[in-house]
Structures are given as structure tokens and as C-alpha cells.
């Protein structure tokens, strides 16, 4: 005989459906959110807590948070015991402890325990069972009203849809005789919790838990249609956005780490955006497993959590470790590996990956439709996106001094790199390079990133003639009283290189034989560069970079971030028909390149009347933003020479 039971928990306040820790990935049954006293064993399968061994003053304790018993004057639990008996409940509060009890049956029952109003509840102890054996709780709620139990007589029909990758939903058509569910003691409201239990055996399963969202009284027939969405609605309605302590920009993070942040900071967070307005969501992530590999950069730009998680799972597909997810009726998020056909294994998840009952004609298969189609088939996908390197703005200069290199140093010159946390343009640090030469007043050289020359940035594969890649950087120099000489033919420059012999070089400053506007800064001579001032440059680079050093319009708000371009990626397969194996067609090649900065050329200039002492230095940057590149130098003159290099 199939079993049906449904109830509406009205004006729900603090509650616990899963008994799981919310901010943990530990799926162990013994790791629960409730406190266990000595001698008490308690486990949770994510839906039901089972405990035994309670005695006077010892049991399991729920901490619902500081809660007003005036606002929520009812403690509601759904419980049963293996052997019956009574269970004592001690409600600790701002006044005298409320000592309550109820009698358990061996079948599930919902109990409503009225509380003394005017108190502030702190914790609730369930213990001192009168009969030994397991006691099971399905949930515990503090509510503003008593629950409604929907009998089979009142339910005309209904449906429950349990979805993967989205939100469950339920619809009920009720007998609403004389407005029973609108204007009587049975009235319920939006946001009340609907639980539905269905089963083919003697005990129904918890198939649905969610919030009521829609009421529709219908006449004739005096019926009421209510619809509800499951607890997964929390992830549909929560937007991933900037938090005071957690920006939705994830670099070198695993999908699990990102999902954990979604749940902790964007779904359950009681002070989202720093505003103390509770979301009233309590999604546990005990059953969120690691699927997929580290993602260099993931940005969620005001997407809801479901959409963001679907994107992450799409990445896991491409990585070869596809994952799937769903929220169960007890507010647990499950993230599990999809698994190959006939070989699924959900590991530590308490739900088996394979359903135990076979659907078979002549046994239990009533009807079926098994259509296959190719209506949506595509075998070439053009994906237009925006690429950024490094993933996190400023990453090339955030405590990375040890990974910068120097070259072409004037003999005797020493380049000393350090991370500077006091003079920065953006982020928390800048990379500082000081050039010194103890034996001479002549020093100079180039600095570049990364020292290993393994940046792997294929500029030629990015952008287009109308939208070249942009190199975005800040730099700053300190020349002080040093000489400020720009040697003819060796102006300060910035360069990109694949190796020592293959450089793409731009003049940062023009020398004496080159017009000022033919340099990035639009000035002639290093002496015209302002000391201790952050220059911010957006430099179009690559084969379509040109020589106009103004900023180019780009796609979105992240455009002021280092090297950023729009790219077109075409993924294709030659398989036209299902069942065929795709074949390869060409390949994408990435060349290893190094973005390098040339801190001016070793200069040797003269000024009329002065000896030819080449006292110069260089500055310049590269790699993303070189926040504060400062060098010490002396310059006695400005020497002009022709040079505008762009090889």
C-alpha cells in the first residue's frame, strides 16, 4: 500500500533538517551539528539523526541560536523510537529551564511542544529516554504557528519533481472547502515549509522539502492549488557577488573550494554584503565532493549560485571529471562524480549511485517513451570570450620579487628586487628594483618577468586587428639627483620576447633623435619623466598592436586588467552522426613566450661641457603591472638619438 503524508510547517524560524555541520565537507555520519553528551551515540545520514544512550541530563543538544519564544512559541519535531517510550526535552533559555516531554511511537509522528513565551532560547536538550534503543528525529523546528498535516482526503492530486542541477518543485491540489486553507486555523502563508513523504512500502520516504510560493483558490470545486520550490531555491535565489571579505574572483581554486565559498559566503551568510539580514538558508555542504581540477581563473559576475555551479560542472566535463549536483529535501547539497555508464560510484555520499530497483517490462514498467534525436546536434562550436593573464589582477607583482629576473646589466651594476608593501598602485604589493653600481656612477639594465622565461603567453592567438591584446601596467621611477641621460639609440624601452634574440620592443621614452610622441609616454628624454609618480599604461601589443598607445575599448568591467583580449575559440568535431567517434582536425599550438621588461638600455651620454659619463639607469616594467619600479640613478645629461623600435 503506497504511503502518503504531507505537512506544512508554518512561520518557520530556526530549524534543522539535516543535522549536518554547514561549513564542513566531512560526510562522516558521526560528524553532526548537534552536541553529544558522554555516553550518547548519535549519527546523521543527512536526513535523520539517530541517537541512543541518553540519560537524565545527557543527550543531544540543538543550538538554534538566540531565539525569541514569543516570535517562535512552538518547538516542532518529527520523531520515532525503535522501542517507544518517552523523551525528555529541556529548553534552556533566559529564564527557568522549560522541561517538556513527549511519548514516542515506533512510527513517525510530528510533535508540537508549546513554549513559554517571553524567553530567549539558547539551546534544547533531547535526552533521558525512558526506554533504551535508537531514537530518530527527522527535523526540529522553532515555529511561529502550529503545523498543518495534509491528509489523503484533502489532497485531490499532486506532484513532486526532483531535479538534478536545479531546484525541486511540488504542486498540490487541495480541497479548499469554504476557504479552509486561507481564512481559518489551517491558513498558511508564503515561505512556510512543505514536507512530503511518499513510499511504496510500510514507511514513506522524505521525497520533498521546500517553501510554499503560490496559492491559487479555484471556484467552482472550491479547490486550492499551491506550488512550492525545494530547498535548492536557496542556490537559485542567491547571487554570487562581492563581499567585504570575499570577492567572487577565484584564482587557482578547485571547484570544491569555489562551491564552499558559494555556500558559506553567498548562500548561508547571515550578514551578506556586511548587512545583517539573515538569508534564512541553511544548506549543508557535507556531501560536496571534489570534482574537477584546479581552475586558474573563475569569475562569477552576479550569476546565481546554480548558474555558477553549472559552469563549474561544465569545466569539469572538459577536464574529464564530470560532476553533477542536487539539493535533497533535507537541505543538503550533493556534488558527486557523474560516473561512466554502469560504473557510477558516489564514494562517501550516503546515497547510492545506482538505484536498486530495475525498471522492467512485465514487472514494474507501466509506460515508456525513449526518443533519440539529433535536433540540437552541433559539431562546431564558436566560443567568443575574454581572456586575461594573469588571472588575478596584479598577480605578477604581488610578492613576486623573487621570480623577476634581470639582464643586460651595465658592468658592475647590481639589480636588487624586493616586494614593497608601502608604495603601491593597486593590490597590496609592488615589485621594486634598485640598480646600484658601487664602482661606477654608470649603471643600468633590464628587468623581466618571469625569471624562468616560461610565461607561455601566445599573444599571436589573441584578439584581432580591431581588438589587439592590451598590456596594462603601472610603473614608477625614482631618479632623484642622479644623472638623467638618455643615450642616442638606447632609449628606455619595454619589450616582449620569446628568447634573447627575438624581442618585440617599444620605446617607453624617446631619445634625442626621435619625436616625443613616438614613445609610449609621449616624452623625449628620461629627464622629462616625472619622479615618484605612478604612470598607468594600456599598451596594445602583438601583431595588431600598432604604435598608438591609447586605450582600446574592451568588453566588460574587467577590461582594465593586465593583458586582456577577446578571443575566438572554435571547438569542433567531425562526427556528424551520433555513435561515431570524432576525429581530430589540426591542432592548437601555444608558443612559450616571455613578457620581458627592458629597463632602459645601458646608457652613455654626454652633455655639452661635461665628461661623457653615462650615468643612467632604467626603469620600466612589464609582466602585468609593475607596481612601483624604482631605481636610483644619476644622470648628467640628456642625449638624443633616433630610435623607435617595434620589431
Amino acid at each position: 500500500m503506497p504511503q502518503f503524508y504531507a505537512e506544512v510547517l508554518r512561520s518557520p524560524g530556526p530549524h534543522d533538517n539535516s543535522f549536518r555541520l554547514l561549513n564542513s565537507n566531512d560526510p562522516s555520519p558521526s560528524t553532526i551539528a548537534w552536541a553529544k553528551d558522554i555516553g550518547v551515540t548519535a549519527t546523521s545520514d543527512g536526513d535523520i539523526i539517530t541517537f541512543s544512550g541518553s540519560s537524565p541530563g545527557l543527550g543531544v543538544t540543538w543550538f538554534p541560536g538566540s531565539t525569541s519564544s514569543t516570535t517562535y512559541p512552538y518547538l516542532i519535531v518529527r520523531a520515532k523510537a525503535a522501542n517507544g517510550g518517552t523523551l525528555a526535552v529541556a529548553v534552556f533559555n533566559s529564564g527557568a529551564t522549560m522541561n517538556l516531554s513527549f511519548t514516542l511511537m515506533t512510527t513517525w509522528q510530528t510533535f508540537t511542544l508549546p513554549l513559554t513565551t517571553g524567553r530567549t532560547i539558547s539551546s534544547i536538550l533531547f535526552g533521558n529516554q525512558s526506554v533504551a534503543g535508537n531514537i530518530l528525529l527527522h527535523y526540529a523546528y522553532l515555529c511561529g504557528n502550529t503545523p498543518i498535516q495534509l491528509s489523503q482526503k484533502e489532497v485531490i492530486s499532486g506532484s513532486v519533481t526532483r531535479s538534478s542541477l536545479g531546484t525541486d518543485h511540488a504542486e498540490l491540489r487541495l480541497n479548499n472547502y469554504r476557504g479552509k486553507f486561507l481564512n481559518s486555523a489551517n491558513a498558511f502563508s508564503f515561505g512556510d515549509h512543505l514536507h512530503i513523504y511518499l513510499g511504496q512500502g510500510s514507511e514513506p520516504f522524505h521525497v520533498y522539502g521546500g517553501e510554499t510560493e503560490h496559492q491559487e483558490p479555484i471556484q467552482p470545486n472550491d479547490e486550492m492549488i499551491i506550488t512550492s520550490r525545494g530547498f535548492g531555491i536557496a542556490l537559485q535565489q542567491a547571487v554570487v557577488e562581492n563581499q567585504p571579505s570575499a570577492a567572487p574572483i577565484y584564482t587557482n581554486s578547485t571547484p570544491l573550494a569555489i562551491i564552499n565559498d558559494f555556500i558559506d559566503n553567498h548562500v548561508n551568510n547571515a550578514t551578506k554584503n556586511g548587512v545583517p539580514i539573515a538569508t534564512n538558508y541553511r544548506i549543508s555542504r557535507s556531501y560536496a565532493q571534489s570534482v574537477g581540477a584546479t581552475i586558474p581563473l573563475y569569475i562569477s559576475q552576479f550569476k546565481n549560485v546554480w548558474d555558477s555551479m553549472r559552469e563549474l560542472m561544465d569545466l569539469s566535463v572538459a577536464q574529464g571529471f564530470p560532476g553533477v549536483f542536487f539539493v535533497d529535501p533535507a537541505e543538503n547539497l550533493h556534488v558527486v562524480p557523474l560516473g561512466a555508464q554502469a560504473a557510477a560510484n558516489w564514494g562517501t555520499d550516503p546515497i547510492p549511485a545506482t538505484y536498486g530497483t530495475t525498471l522492467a517490462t512485465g514487472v514494474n514498467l507501466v509506460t515508456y517513451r525513449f526518443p533519440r534525436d539529433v535536433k540540437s546536434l552541433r559539431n562546431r562550436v564558436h566560443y567568443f570570450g575574454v581572456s586575461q593573464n594573469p588571472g588575478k589582477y596584479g598577480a605578477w607583482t604581488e610578492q613576486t620579487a623573487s621570480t623577476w629576473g634581470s639582464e643586460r646589466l651595465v658592468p658592475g651594476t647590481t639589480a636588487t628586487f624586493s616586494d614593497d608593501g608601502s608604495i603601491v598602485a593597486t593590490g597590496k604589493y609592488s615589485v621594486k628594483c634598485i640598480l646600484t653600481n658601487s664602482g661606477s656612477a654608470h649603471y643600468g639594465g633590464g628587468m623581466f618577468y618571469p625569471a624562468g622565461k616560461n610565461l607561455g603567453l601566445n599573444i599571436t592567438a589573441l584578439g584581432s586587428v580591431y581588438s589587439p591584446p592590451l598590456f596594462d601596467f603601472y610603473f614608477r621611477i625614482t631618479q632623484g639627483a642622479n644623472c638623467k641621460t638618455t643615450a642616442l639609440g638606447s632609449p628606455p624601452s619595454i619589450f616582449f620576447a620569446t628568447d634573447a634574440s627575438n624581442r618585440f620592443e617599444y620605446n617607453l621614452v624617446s631619445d634625442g633623435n626621435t619625436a616625443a610622441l613616438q614613445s609610449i609616454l609621449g616624452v623625449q628624454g628620461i629627464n622629462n619623466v616625472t619622479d615618484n609618480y605612478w604612470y598607468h599604461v594600456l599598451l596594445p601589443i602583438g601583431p595588431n598592436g600598432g604604435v598608438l598607445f591609447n586605450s582600446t575599448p574592451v568588453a566588460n568591467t574587467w577590461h582594465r586588467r593586465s593583458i586582456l583580449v577577446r578571443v575566438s575559440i572554435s571547438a569542433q568535431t567531425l562526427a556528424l552522426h551520433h555513435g561515431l567517434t570524432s576525429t581530430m582536425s589540426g591542432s592548437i599550438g601555444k608558443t612559450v613566450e616571455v613578457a620581458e621588461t627592458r629597463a632602459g638600455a645601458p646608457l652613455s651620454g654626454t652633455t655639452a661641457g661635461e665628461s661623457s659619463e653615462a650615468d643612467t639607469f632604467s626603469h620600466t616594467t612589464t609582466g602585468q603591472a609593475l607596481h612601483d619600479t624604482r631605481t636610483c640613478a644619476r644622470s648628467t645629461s640628456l642625449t638624443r638619438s633616433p630610435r623607435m623600435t617595434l620589431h
Partner: protein
Amino acid sequence: MREIHFFDPITKDDTALNNYAIAELKRLRNGILRGTATTPLLGDAFPEQQVQVTTQSANYSNTFLRATSIIHRFSPQGMLTEFQLSDDFTNSQPLDLWKLSNALLQIGENAIISREVYDLKTAILDPTFTPQLVPVT
């Protein structure tokens, strides 16, 4: 050749861009089953479980299919469970039957349709982009 374009305005790293393109291709490049099977009430079934199906006329013999959703329908006249089934074991988000509820909830294939409409509305495309070809086997 059947082609489709996607536009993603949110900054990614190079690897992720390739992977998103691959994911879209893997989802779309094969014909797949989008079926339903109805049984008497089976209340303990979960979405995403693999279900064995045996029915001669569809040439399934203890064949594992993927339950993308479970629908229970009940009334005093009886209780039935409908399994939404797929044979796509590659994609996290397989194509699904078109359903209005999916459209409202932005799941299933409707997520893809919504995505296409969104892309059409927001795309800033440069037809001179040089494609990077990513062959997928």
C-alpha cells in the same frame, strides 16, 4: 556541418575558455536519449542515480540509464513515478526534454536556449577574430 556560437562576456583564463568551448561541444555533438519511463511509486529514487532498464522493444537489457529527474504523481486514484532518462554519461548538463517548468527554472535544455538568447542580446562580436581551433575527439 552544424555550427553554433556562444559569447561569454566574463573574463576567463585561456584554459577555461578552451574548456567551456569543449564542454558546449560535448553536450551538443551527439544524438542522445531523452526518455521517460513510468512505474508504480518508487519513492526512494534520487535524481542522477543510474537506473537499470530492461525492455525488449527498446533493445534494453539491464541497461544503465541516467535519471536526470524523478517525478512523483499522486492522487487517491494511485501513485506513479516517472523517471526522466538520458544515456549521456559525459556531460554534467545533458540535453533534456523541453518542459515549461524547466524554462521557468532555467534548467535542462532551456538553460541552453536561454543562453543563446542572452548571447544574441549581449554579444559584441568581432568578425575578424582569428579562431583558435580546438579539435575534440
